[in-house]
């Protein structure tokens, strides 16, 4: 009856990361860490999963002579997020 929710987005941390990225053009890894309060290792694992699925793009650069990771959402990621939100609405209001 209901469309299945994307298992990749249906996770607390990954959903928080992707929501943050939807609202911005580019976000630094450290900003995601401070906003989600999650461990860096855990965030790295979740980011790798989203990157492997083609939902996000990870750019490794240098800033003030230190490695800097910038993350942005891809077109595929935006589409997946929109589908996820639309499916969520169906769970909350099955008539829509």
């Amino acid at each position, binding site marked *: 009856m209901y469309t299945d*929710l994307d298992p990749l987005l*249906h*996770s*607390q*941390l990954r*959903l*928080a990361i992707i*929501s*943050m990225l*939807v*609202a*911005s*053009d*580019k*976000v*630094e890894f*450290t*900003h995601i860490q401070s*906003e*989600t*309060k*999650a461990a860096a290792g*855990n965030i790295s694992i979740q980011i790798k999963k989203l990157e492997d699925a083609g939902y996000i793009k990870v750019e490794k650069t240098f*800033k*003030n002579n230190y490695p800097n990771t910038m993350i942005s959402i891809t077109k595929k990621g935006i589409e997946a997020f929109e589908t*996820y*939100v639309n499916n*969520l609405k169906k*769970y*909350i209001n099955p008539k829509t």
Partner: protein
Amino acid sequence: MEKDNLTPDESFDIINKAISNYKMNYKENSQVFLLWGWILTLASISTFILLKILSNWEAHELRLGKWELKGLFFLGNWIVFCSIGFIIMYFMVRKMKKNKKVYSHIDKFIDNLWWVIAPSFFIAIFISIKLEIAPPPLMLLIGGIATTTTGLAIKFKPLIFGGMSFFVFSIASTFFTNEYLALVVSAAIICGYLIPGYFLKAAKE
């Protein structure tokens, strides 16, 4: 923070929190408006003083061979001030980028807008010289479009009104000539850049 069996309500809650916690901070833009506000105000006031001094000179003293000194001083004054502005801005933007952790869609839009507007100013100067008309009406019109659009993008009323004041000054500037035109430009810069710039600086994050 990790949970995979989320209810739809919990999912919506995460999305809402992530988006609403995303604080937009455009206060740093005030530095750019204040920098150009002061640079252009000083440039236009010094142009006024320069033209006032030159107006007391004899006609033959205002020529250096085939060159007209008035135009050279006028152009030179603006080039000096704008060059100083660009040098300061280069270091200012470099410092701002060092501290920036989030690049919003609006940041990107504003950057692109001003990258398009900057060459438009130079094209407007070229057109004005070619058509032998005073550049301020065109310059103020272009400045007004960019400033009002920036104000609308960041939803900051003083900047919207400041940008719109450029339109009024653009029309007003067509009624003035020579040195007094420089005063109209300085009044426009004070209303369009400096006052909104200080409001933006004082605004809450």
